[in-house]
């Protein structure tokens, strides 16, 4: 077994110490600080990013709340405006309706008056026509010409009796 040959034992130990000591020195002074630096940097960056993300999230939530509040206010306002407009329109409609019905009543009253006048006139005419006819009929039948007062009285009486 060449491993047990002591010829190179000292050489092996010597070079092991030299190589490993050099390796250890370079590792601890150069290589490992660099790796740990990079890893720390990354950890810091990740932590930083996480913190920033958290901050942004809180900000976004605040913005959302604000927006919802503004939306609610706007909604209320819109409802107010709508109500006002409706009320106005209702009032206007009522006013217009009453004006129209007033006008309508006026017109119908006028028409009724006119009808009444015409009726009165017609009735007056009817009375004189009836008196004339009664005078003529009386004269023809009995040859007596009644006085105007009697005739009109008689006509009135019979017309009243007719209703």
């Amino acid at each position: 077994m060449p491993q047990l040959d002591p010829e190179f034992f000292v050489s092996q130990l010597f070079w092991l110490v030299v190589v490993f000591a050099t390796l250890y020195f370079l590792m601890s002074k150069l290589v490992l600080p660099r790796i740990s630096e990079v890893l720390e940097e990354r950890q810091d960056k990740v932590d930083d990013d996480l913190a920033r993300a958290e901050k942004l999230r809180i900000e976004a939530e605040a913005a959302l709340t604000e927006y919802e509040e503004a939306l609610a206010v706007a909604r209320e306002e819109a409802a107010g405006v709508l109500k006002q407009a409706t009320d106005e329109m209702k009032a206007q409609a009522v006013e217009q309706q009453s004006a129209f019905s007033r006008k309508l009543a006026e017109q119908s009253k006028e028409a009724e008056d006119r009808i009444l006048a015409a009726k009165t006139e017609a009735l007056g005419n009817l009375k004189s026509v009836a008196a004339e006819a009664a005078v003529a009929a009386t004269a023809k039948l009995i040859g007596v010409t009644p006085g105007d007062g009697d005739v009109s009285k008689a006509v009135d009486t019979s017309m009243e009796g007719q209703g």
Partner: protein
Amino acid sequence: MAEAPNGESGFPVDPMHQFEVQAIVPIHVGDLNLSFTNASLWMVISAVAILLFLGLSMRGRALVPGRMQSMAELCYEMIANMVRDNVGQEGRKYFPFIFSLFMFLLFGNLLGMIPGSFTFTSHIIVTFAMAIVIFLAVTLIGIMRHGTKFLSLFFPHGAPLWTAVILVPIELISYLSRPISLSVRLFANMMAGHILLKVFTGFILLTGVLGVIPLAVLIGITALEFLVAVLQAYIFTILTCVYLHDAIHLH
């Protein structure tokens, strides 16, 4: 790892040849043989590969890591978590050592899978040196932190006093055998795996057309060896963490 025909046994591959240390640049200081060998070369290659891998992949310092950077960060975080979970907050200052240890073993084991390379973790002297240094360092840390209270590590808390006669020797032996089990586990795993690869290569050469059968097995073993390479580096490292935990927290 070069295949040397072994004329005596008739087996076409010498499975032990791959473990032979050869001097590339012979250096002798006094009586000491400090030659730069193929084992040393692969130690250097491993270290350079680790530094290049980590250095180049982290060069971009990208916030969103690419593939290479992810791999480097994965290694870092795996060991960081291992140290944190097993040793705790006090383990932070030992992290560079444990990370270097893990990467050195991992790269040593994985680079050893390259045909023709040298697996320095398959040498008991190398793994034992690491294990004994860890053992001594951990013991020293324990004594410096706790003084004589460190000795309570050898007697489970709450056990009846008379059991100390049995328990203390057992705990002591298990404690002292830690460097041996730690180093032998890694060394034996790496050596056995590499021998197995060579033996099956020999079977392929011996069986001719029928060699497809050992070839299929060889492919499976190769995959298994990659797993073992990673796993053994991991086990060595996590046991180091566990020993460190014992020394710092005394069970």
